[in-house]
């Protein structure tokens, strides 16, 4: 996984709540068997509208998405994270993320930042007033900075460490081989097996 320490970029204000993963990447894109090439599917339906914020010329090249609450609800499709990354986003800020989406994002090095609604509102105002305004998402200092804003955010320490180091979760887990084997040896005989009888 790509390591994340700090990122500074222009923002896209997405003033919508409950942005579900079907909006982020519609199901027909899920037929692909790769982790890349999803950028054109990102918010595909909304992008048909030339006025949609992502289509505005001043938003081109932006890397920080600032969204309303309950971002990433619905399907577990990791393609939603890949689509955001393929498009160029490095971080998403929202007052609340759906659990599975958040887990997926952190496993891919897309930083999802929880900030209160009031702070999100401030960031929206800043970027709407000046599309060239930059937002810094600093995982080392655990804070988001923009003109007149300095907002601390929380991230579970272990997840933060994995992100900052760009660590491979599977390799870390496999270091516990002895514990896994010991657990396996202790499982009751009645537990189900998929092997055909």
């Amino acid at each position, binding site marked *: 996984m790509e390591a994340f320490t700090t990122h500074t970029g222009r923002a896209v204000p997405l*003033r*919508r*709540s*409950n942005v*579900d993963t*079907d*909006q982020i990447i*519609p*199901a027909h894109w*899920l*037929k*692909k*068997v*790769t982790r890349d090439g999803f950028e054109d599917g990102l918010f595909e*339906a909304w992008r048909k509208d030339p006025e949609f914020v992502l289509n505005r010329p001043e938003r081109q090249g932006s890397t920080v998405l600032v969204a309303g*609450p*309950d971002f990433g*609800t*619905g*399907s*577990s*499709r*990791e393609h939603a*994270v890949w689509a955001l990354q393929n498009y160029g986003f490095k971080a998403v800020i929202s007052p*609340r*993320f*759906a*659990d*599975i989406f*958040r*887990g*997926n994002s*952190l*496993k*891919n090095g897309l930083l999802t930042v*929880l900030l209160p*609604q009031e702070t999100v509102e401030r960031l929206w105002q800043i970027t709407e007033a000046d599309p060239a305004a930059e937002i810094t998402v600093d995982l080392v200092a655990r804070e988001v900075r923009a003109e007149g804003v300095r907002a601390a955010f*929380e*991230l*579970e*320490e*272990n*997840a933060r460490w994995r992100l900052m180091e760009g660590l491979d*979760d*599977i390799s870390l*887990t*496999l270091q*516990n081989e002895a*514990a*896994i084997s010991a*657990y396996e040896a202790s499982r*009751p*005989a*009645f*537990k*189900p*097996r*998929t*092997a055909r*009888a």
Partner: protein
Amino acid sequence: MERGTAAPPGSRDRTGTSLELGRTKHPAEGKAMGRTLAEKVWDDHIVRRAEGEPDLLFIDLHLLHEVTSPQAFDGLRKNGRRVRRTDLTIATEDHNTPTLDIDKPIADPVSRTQLETLRRNCAEFGVRLHPLGDVEQGVVHVVGPQLGLTQPGTTVVCGDSHTSTHGAFGALAFGIGTSQVEHVLATQTLPLAPFRTMAVTVNGELGDDVTAKDLILAVIARIGTGGGQGYVIEYRGEAIEKLSMEARMTICNMSIEAGARAGMIAPDSTTFDYIRGRDHAPQGADWDAAVEYWRTLRTDDDAVFDHEVVIDAAELAPFVTWGTNPGQGAPLSASVPDPAAFEDASERFAAEKALEYMGLAPGQPLREIPVDTVFVGSCTNGRIEDLRAAASVLDGRSVADGVRMLVVPGSVRVALEAVAEGLDKVFTGAGAEWRHAGCSMCLGMNPDQLAPGERSASTSNRNFEGRQGKGGRTHLVSPQVAAATAVLGHLASPADLVDDRIAVEA
């Protein structure tokens, strides 16, 4: 899988400590008191617990399908890893499969490639697969339980958010992303952030015209699509205990629509009776040992939930959605709400957007909303009991002119059972289409889709914009409401049907 900081009104943390992300509160930590069902299952699967790290949990059952697994297998190949426990892994094809002409090559080359990729991966890594055309093929969450693989006290994962379905058996079951699929394939474990517990207690008895679907839609409308976030919900109370396994699966299935990490129901004799004799049910002495363990899987009387919601079953009625998320629902007897009536600004804006997308006006009676399409199926309502319920309403009646009705069984086994009971004839006799098993129009990945502007009454789980096809409009309903709606051509419940059935000799 990490929880956010926001909690529903009235939620509390029993330890009195902060629930901020930086804190690590393990389920069993600091508790001299009893444990909840979820905590017991969690504790029984801890492979490793260390200060400052998420618990490493063992996974008893890993279900795979074609959509969220190819990149995970690629990851294994790239790193020279194998599937650690092929004997705890099983795959089927459901999301992307056609429901017509399944004996012919799949027309869409991209879909065909995805299915072929799963077949190749399963062969290469030694994973049991039930492909299209196999008698055990079907929606992954219908297949696991019917094979007897889903058992109380197990941990079940799948790269699909509706894995919560399996919680109906007292399993801790949740959807995961593709990176986690790869993790489970390689290690049979997952590092998981701690959760909070919520009880949804349903007192009393559901009325004759009220189904599990109405109940769960009402719960989601009440707590909101983010209301369950960070929680494992346990559904309990008299009304839940009386439900069949199929109905319990419908409820746990939609836990994710409330944002919950999982939904669970304590196993009881209904659960044991469902499992007994199935292909993978424990046998002989193993059965006795299993049941003895399963009986311990109940929330202790002195256990404390982090949050509790109480619902009076007597107040429930047939329930439908009017908006574009599953929390935007109301009783069928109500009208489309006025967005101006929402106090919360973001809810008001969401309601405005939803009505615009849905082509509805405030004050319009829900019963008067006409539909073009009716879909019966999915992991929410595609089991035999659901098909029986829809068929019993349709029997002797006809689908209204101009309405297309699709009935898609959840699995081949469900289809065979339905055919044996003559349900397929009831459906086709009424003018509905009887299709082959799969996810179908629930997510519109295969050709079963709504056209732009078309409106459906659907027994599935999501009414998101474009979910069932670009520009399509979805109303979530129970199988009974779906069938009555098909007959009348507008949203309706069986109570709205006059008794005009054509008498059919048995």
